[in-house]
């Protein structure tokens, strides 16, 4: 583990605006928000959390360019080099003169590559695959609850009072099963809830 003395608390909110407003005071007080789980995309959440812009659209452009190249190579090789044919008195000996007929193929393959490879990239970057265990720790976060996971050091009383002030309806210690000492720590902390 990168940081064993960091503990994590999860705060549940029952309203998206309340959760969104609570992020700023938390971050200003030096707490790091590790993750947010929400049932739907919340406008401005990525900005509040300080997430970088996603570059997935750039990958789509690159994949599209790849698709276009594949289409050019395919039509050029099959129709001009490998087996040029004289179709309806219009011989296909030059790519330049035949390229208008290949535009639909080029367009379709550009879209095909851009769309499919981007979606594959999306799955890979998100770590999503069929049958993966649910990534949200609380099943209510796909219904109507909004969860923040916040890291803290040592004493959690400051964080707890801050969370209560910002409108959190439920506060739990996250059991980090990979962290060995968290067991004893958790018991102590749970008495203070």
């Amino acid at each position, binding site marked *: 583990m990168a940081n064993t003395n960091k503990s994590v608390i999860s705060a549940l909110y029952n309203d998206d605006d309340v959760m969104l407003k609570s992020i700023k005071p938390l971050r200003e007080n030096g707490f790091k928000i590790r993750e947010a789980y929400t*049932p739907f995309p*919340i406008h401005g959440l990525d900005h509040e959390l300080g997430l970088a812009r996603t570059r*997935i*659209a750039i990958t789509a452009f690159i994949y599209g360019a790849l698709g276009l190249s594949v289409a050019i190579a395919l039509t050029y090789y099959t129709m001009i080099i490998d087996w040029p044919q004289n179709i309806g008195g219009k011989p296909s000996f030059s790519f330049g003169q035949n390229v208008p007929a290949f535009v639909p193929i080029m367009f379709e393959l550009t879209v095909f590559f851009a769309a499919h490879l*981007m979606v594959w990239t999306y799955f890979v970057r998100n770590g*999503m695959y069929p*049958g993966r265990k*649910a990534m949200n720790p609380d*099943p209510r976060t796909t219904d109507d609850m909004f969860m923040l996971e916040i890291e803290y050091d040592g004493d959690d009383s400051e964080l707890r009072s801050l969370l209560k002030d910002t409108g959190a309806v439920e506060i739990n210690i996250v059991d980090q099963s990979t962290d060995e000492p968290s067991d004893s720590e958790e018991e102590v902390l749970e008495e203070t809830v």
Partner: protein
Amino acid sequence: MHYESPVREPLITGDKSYHDITVDVAKPIETNAPRSWWIALSISLIAFLWGVGCILYTIGTGIGTWGLNRTVNWAWDITNFVWWVGIGHAGTLISAVLLLFRQKWRMSINRSAEAMTIFAVVQAALFPGIHMGRIWLAYFVFPIPNQFGSLWVNFNSPLLWDVFAISTYFSVSLVFWYVGLIPDFAMLRDRAIRPVQKHIYSILSFGWGGKAKHWQRFEEVSLVLAGLATPLVLSVHTIVSMDFATSVIPGWHTTIFPPYFVAGAIFSGFAMVQTLLIIMRKMFKMEDYITIQHIEMMNIIIMVTGSIVGIAYITELFMAWYSGVEYEQYAFLNRATGPYWWAYWSMMTCNVFSPQFMWFKKLRTSIMFTFIISIVVNIGMWFERFVIIVTSLHRDYLPSSWTMFSPSFVDIGIFIGTIGFFFVLFLLYARSFPVIAQAELKTILKSSGENYKKLQEQDHGKH
């Protein structure tokens, strides 16, 4: 923050909370099906099985079982193909084009409209497949050397463009639909009580947890896919129209075909969305989400695209006369006054005349009337393709080979079979998939939900 002008009607009626949306969307899956669902499924299944029988008979015996002849060598098969592809277009238009235009009313209908797209394209793809005759040689359409020697497919041919267009369209629509479905499958997974159900939705939801970064990527992917799907959907019917427009048959060889086909596709697709959603909202009590306003919006689109189609018909007639080409002139005269006059005038009545009723607010907000018009439009659009295809072919350049076309029971059986198959797929979808994009819909609850809009107005009154 969630402000929307009070002039706009609420898109979600009833006092809904986020949890209510979850419950309402999950209800058709978690409860037993209404009797009407079983009746509809049984009828569709019978029609589907009848179609399977006719398809097997065609494959086993040959295309001779159809009503085609030497003169009319394309008829119901290609009519049905174009009809089904066209119906599919509305789904992509709703989910992609209306997303780019930020039309919020798309959110409660886009899931089902996209499902309709996918199921309609499945039906469409069946027809060229079986029309090949030897369907086991279907791999000939892929860019691999024929018989694995050295002869390739012909990239000059619009029929091959069609293969690429339809397969790209189908697969891209499918992933677009699925990317949007994942968060909703996750919602069903987290609610499921029965282990089998939980397991299935767990596999389908890919482990989705609604992390902030994942939502950020989700929105970007949706936007880019919408941007890609928009020109794609226009390209598909453009290329379908080129199957005809690049030929030298009078009545086909016209440059107006691509925009005219695309408008017709959207027209018929929205009509099919109306047919399906009016049944669905009643069967599964979705009236709070698919409101009269949604139906009215779609009726306006039907009216506009129907009028575009009407202008295209008239332009075609004018151009036939203005071109001075004798064959072209005859083809159109023959359509309107020849032996297939009834098909032409059915098309004109259903497609040009009937949508004009939508100018009246009373009519376009009437559910019963909308339902009737939606079926009339689809009958009309089927006739449009029949008129274009059969009336252009049946009297060609050589009068000695002029003939008529009459479908055999196999032609009719396959067509009815695809309608059955389509409804089987849609009915099964409606009971096992989240029929409304609930995650997306929750984003507009606070701005467009009825109870929240009332609160906004009260707030506004205070100041």
